[in-house]
Every structure is written in structure tokens, then in C-alpha cells.
């Protein structure tokens, strides 16, 4: 374009297609390549130094091979899937609500998913659950299903509470979400105390957010919900772009606004339902990542959504690597790392938004 400064005067080709199938493919390819590099780097980092080439060539029972492929790889892959879900979910909610402070965590959706997810998990571990068909592999279905229900119900509840006179005020929405999250965290902590003798371990880790490798099947569930959420949201990107003109502007472009909103909430609930059972309530990933992505690719949701997924994956892999290494042998919950990055960032956004609102008024 820049080489043809006068091209716009008559040549329709000057209006280059911003988003084509080829370009979308290219975006996914480049992002995936970057993620692979980040993942490889993360595999090398840990309390024990390993020579990657040696680990690759070593037999399956060699300590280096075990460390890289059995200890680190499952965790790094899971962190990538969870991060992708959170980044994508945050981008979708920010677009849907036209609010740069929205994300699954701030809106209480993660909290709702964790709450029902944990109840399902306790139900699956009480003595006799197996006899009822709730134990073992059934948990793979009922825990994410309960988390999905919790996420969707919370989205509805928070919207309902924040709605006054047919309008949803953005700040009330966020405040309601934050309060609900705190409430969910308190209930989970309470349940943890009660459920201790049922051997429901590690529940507290849910509240802060920890990458918890439960096994290949759980990781696959997380990846599957991520793919489903991505497809659903990619099919909603056109509508989300139109929603940037407001509900009425979108409606005049033929968007069924109510249906678009439902589709996005279902997609976000799917993403969260896959991520929460293996990571708990990790905050700030969905908040920060879309901002950085928009700086790079602009505000077209057809690009922002997939790019936020890949960037979220890379970010959480890095954050989790920091979480398991900075204190040496002692591990930090990854939610602490993301909160340390995200807290100040959130305040910065809040200040900037307040300044802009003031500018609009004057």
C-alpha cells in the first residue's frame, strides 16, 4: 500500500482484503511457531539442568528423558492450553462488552465454574461415589460439565444483577463479577475445610490458580474445549466487529444481537469449563493478553481472537515456568505470578479509562 500513495484514487485493488483465509492461516502458523519456541525454552528450564539433545536421545528410563518428557512436557502443554483458553475468553468478553477491563476472572465466570466444579469433584471423591457411577473416569465428564454450568449460570446471574432498567452498566457488571469471585473463593475455602476428611486434596490451589496435571485425559478435555471455543468464537468474530458500533448499529447490519451474545457466553463458558478443573481460578491472563495483542494486530476481532489465544498460551507457559523456578525447589502457584503482573496493569487500565471518560465529558 505504502508504495502506491495514489493507488486509492481509482484502483479497487488498493483496498486490500485485510482478512482472508490465507492471512488467517498465516497468522495461526506464525503464532504456533512462536509458541513452539516458547514451549521448547520452557522445557529446558527447571531446578535440574538438562541437556536437551541428550534428553531427546536418551532411553525412556533415563533421568533426563523423564524430567523433560514426563515431568515438564505435560505441564507445559497444559499451561499452554489453559493460557490459550483464558486469553481467548478475555478477548471475546472485552469485545462483547466493549469493555477493556472484562475477562472471565473479573466477571466472576471463573469463580462460578470453580465453585460447581469443586462440588462435582467432591461428589466424585466421597466414599460410595464410584458405586453411583460418579467416581474415576466419570469425573472427566461431570467436573467440566458442572464447571460449564457454573460458568454459564454466573454469566447470567452477574448480567441479571448488573441490569437496571434494561441496560447493563459496565462498572456495575465488573463490580458484581469481582464480588461474586470473592464469594466463590470463600465458599471453596469453606468446602475445603469441610471436605478434608474426604481426601479432596489440593482444593485450595483452585482459589489462587495452579497448573495441575491430572493426566492426559484431563489435558485432552482442556484442549478439546479450547478448540470448540475457538471455532464458535471465530464464527462470531464478524458479529463481534459489528457490535463495536453498539447494539443498534450491529442490528442494522443484520446481527441478531441476543443470539451473538448467547454464542459468546457459551463459548467462554466452554473455555473456562475446560481450564478450571486443571488450573483453578487463574486471574489476569484474559485481561492483559488482548491488550498487548490489539497493539500488534489492531482491533479486528477476526485477528484479535485467534492471536489472543496463542499469546495467552505463550504468556501462561512463561508465567508457569517462572512459578516453578524462581524460588528454587519451592513452587509458587502460577496465579500469584499472573496477579503480580496483572494487578498493576489493571490499575493502569482503570486510570486510563477514567481519564478517557473525563475527556469525553468535558
Amino acid at each position, binding site marked *: 500500500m505504502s508504495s502506491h500513495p495514489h493507488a486509492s484514487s481509482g484502483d479497487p485493488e488498493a*483496498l486490500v*482484503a*485485510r482478512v482472508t483465509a490465507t492471512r488467517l492461516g498465516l497468522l495461526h502458523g506464525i503464532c504456533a511457531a512462536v509458541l513452539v519456541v516458547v514451549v521448547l525454552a520452557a522445557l529446558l528450564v527447571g531446578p535440574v539442568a538438562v541437556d536437551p539433545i541428550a534428553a531427546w536421545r536418551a532411553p525412556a528410563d533415563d533421568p533426563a528423558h523423564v524430567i523433560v518428557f514426563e515431568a515438564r512436557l505435560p505441564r507445559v502443554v497444559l499451561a499452554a492450553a489453559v493460557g490459550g483458553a483464558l486469553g481467548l475468553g478475555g478477548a471475546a468478553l472485552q469485545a462483547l462488552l466493549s469493555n477493556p477491563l472484562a475477562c472471565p476472572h473479573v466477571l466472576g465466570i471463573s469463580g462460578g465454574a470453580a465453585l460447581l466444579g469443586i462440588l462435582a469433584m467432591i461428589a466424585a471423591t466421597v466414599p460410595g461415589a464410584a458405586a453411583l457411577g460418579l467416581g474415576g473416569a466419570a469425573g472427566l465428564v461431570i467436573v467440566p460439565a458442572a464447571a460449564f454450568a457454573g460458568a454459564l449460570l454466573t454469566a447470567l446471574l452477574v448480567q441479571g444483577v448488573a441490569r437496571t432498567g434494561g441496560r447493563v452498566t459496565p462498572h456495575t457488571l465488573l463490580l458484581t463479577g469481582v464480588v461474586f469471585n470473592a464469594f466463590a473463593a470463600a465458599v471453596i475455602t469453606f468446602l475445603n475445610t469441610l471436605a478434608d476428611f474426604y481426601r479432596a486434596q489440593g482444593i485450595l490451589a483452585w482459589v489462587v490458580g495452579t497448573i495441575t496435571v491430572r493426566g492426559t485425559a484431563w489435558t485432552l478435555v482442556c484442549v478439546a474445549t479450547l478448540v470448540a471455543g475457538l471455532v464458535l468464537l471465530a464464527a462470531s468474530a*464478524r458479529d463481534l466487529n459489528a457490535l*463495536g458500533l453498539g447494539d443498534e448499529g450491529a442490528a442494522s*447490519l*443484520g*446481527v441478531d444481537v441476543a443470539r451473538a451474545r448467547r454464542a459468546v457466553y457459551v463459548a467462554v463458558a466452554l473455555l473456562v469449563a475446560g481450564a478450571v478443573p486443571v488450573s483453578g481460578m487463574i486471574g489476569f491472563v484474559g485481561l492483559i493478553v488482548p491488550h498487548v495483542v490489539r497493539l500488534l494486530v489492531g482491533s479486528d476481532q*477476526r485477528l484479535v481472537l485467534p492471536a489472543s489465544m496463542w499469546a495467552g498460551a505463550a504468556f501462561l507457559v512463561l508465567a508457569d515456568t517462572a512459578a516453578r523456578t524462581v524460588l528454587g525447589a519451592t513452587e509458587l502457584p502460577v496465579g500469584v505470578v499472573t496477579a503480580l503482573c496483572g494487578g498493576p496493569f489493571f490499575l493502569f487500565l482503570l486510570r486510563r479509562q477514567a481519564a478517557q471518560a473525563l475527556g469525553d465529558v468535558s
Partner: protein
Amino acid sequence: MSEHGVPGTLVATSIAVRYGARAALDGVGARVVPGEVLGVIGPNGSGKSTLIRVLAGVRAPSSGTVQLDGRDLHALPRRERARRIALVPQETHLSFPIRVRDLVLLGRAPHTGRFGLERADDLRAAHEAMARAAVLELADRPVDELSGGERQRVVLARALAQDPEILLLDEPTSFLDLKHAVLLLDLVRELCRARGLAVAVVLHDLNLAAMYCDRLLLLDRGRVHAVGTPDEVLTYRDLCAVYGTELYVALNDVTGRLVVLPLSREHRERLVRTPP
């Protein structure tokens, strides 16, 4: 000509819109006809914007029907409706920064598939719309850096990119100075003439309405007070009654159209002492 008029005719019949107990519109009828500019005028709160929203299909009436070529507008698939009717709102708020070309391309949304990938004819249509609205040279500018006049022309280009048969505008000139208001309405009138677009436009300024519209619909507290040519509608008696103030109505001998001017209290009192 069928019983529904020329193809591309939008007909509203007995429209009522109620917000709770308050009726914004009550028994309003309107016809938007190809090749004709219909001006919707009336005081604040008379229901002008509500009528345009109902005609555009973005607001469902409490009762009454809107028909496009004899088909009920609200039974029409939304995307088909958006390919035939475009709406230019009074103001366009953008929640994220966007460049002119991307905003205009958004007008192609009702034509693109589920994943919203643009094809060559979408780009051509957007290009042509930008050319018609004289915003081609703004293509790469961020929308929030534009002046009010440029911005409204860009929003018009976005509407034209929809390739509509019917163009509806809600007070498109209320934030524009005289020059930019006239530029925009010149453009709208030209499109109506050259492409046979059916146009309905809400206008606050009665002089612009008199100059640019083929027919006027005067609304008063949600009801049609008068409908007809500007000469028929812009009468001293009707305007004074509807707007609730003394006005000066005269013929502009340059345009041959009526001009309507408000009068200050001082002049109103002088008028009472020496009746015209």
C-alpha cells in the same frame, strides 16, 4: 407497479411504540419511495428517531406493521433486511479504534459468510461507497481523528457499502456546520436521484428539510400532524401550532423553497402589536 408500489418501497402502517405507559408513536403511517427523499420533522420528543428505527427494523413496534414490497419487515431474515436497508445514526460511538476502510468494510457484514472473510466484490463495493461519499483519501485514517463532517461522510460510506435500496438517516447533520451539512445532504440527494435510492431522513433544521426533501412528514407528540410536499406541510399555522412558538415563514426567492425562522420574544411581541 404492484399493489405495494414500486419495488423497494417501504410502507409503515398504524405504527405505535410504547415505552411503559408513554406512547412515543401512536398510529403513524409513512411511505418511503424509491427516487424520493422523505423528510421526517417535528419538535423534540415527537417520535422522529423512533420512527426511523422502526423503519430500519432495529426496533419492533408495539403494534402496526412495516412492509417492504408487501413482506413484513420483521419476518424478513435480518441479514437480508440489512442488505436492503441501511441506517445512518445520529452519532457513531466506536468502542475500539478503527480505520476508515475497516469501518466502511463493516458495511459488507450482511454480505459476507459466517467467518466474515471479504471477497473481491466486497472490496469493490466498499471502494465504490468510499468514492461516492468522497472519503477515499481518508481510507487509512483512524476514524476517531476525523472531523465531524468527515466522520459523517464515512458513516454514510459504511451505509452505502451495504448496497441498500433504502437509506435511512437519523439527524445526520445535527453535529455539522453549515458547509458540511449541505455537503452531506447534497450527496444524499444525488444518490437518491442517480441510483433511485429510497431515502428517509430525520432533520431538525426545517430550512434544510424544505430544500432537500420531496415530501415531508410532520410529527407532533407521536402522531402525524401533516404529510405532503414541503409547500403543503410548512405552513405558518401548522408549524406555529406544532412547535408552540411564533415563527416567520416566507418564500426564499433564490430557491423558490420556503424558509422558516424562529423569532425572539422581542420580535414576537412586536408581531402581536402589528399583525402581518
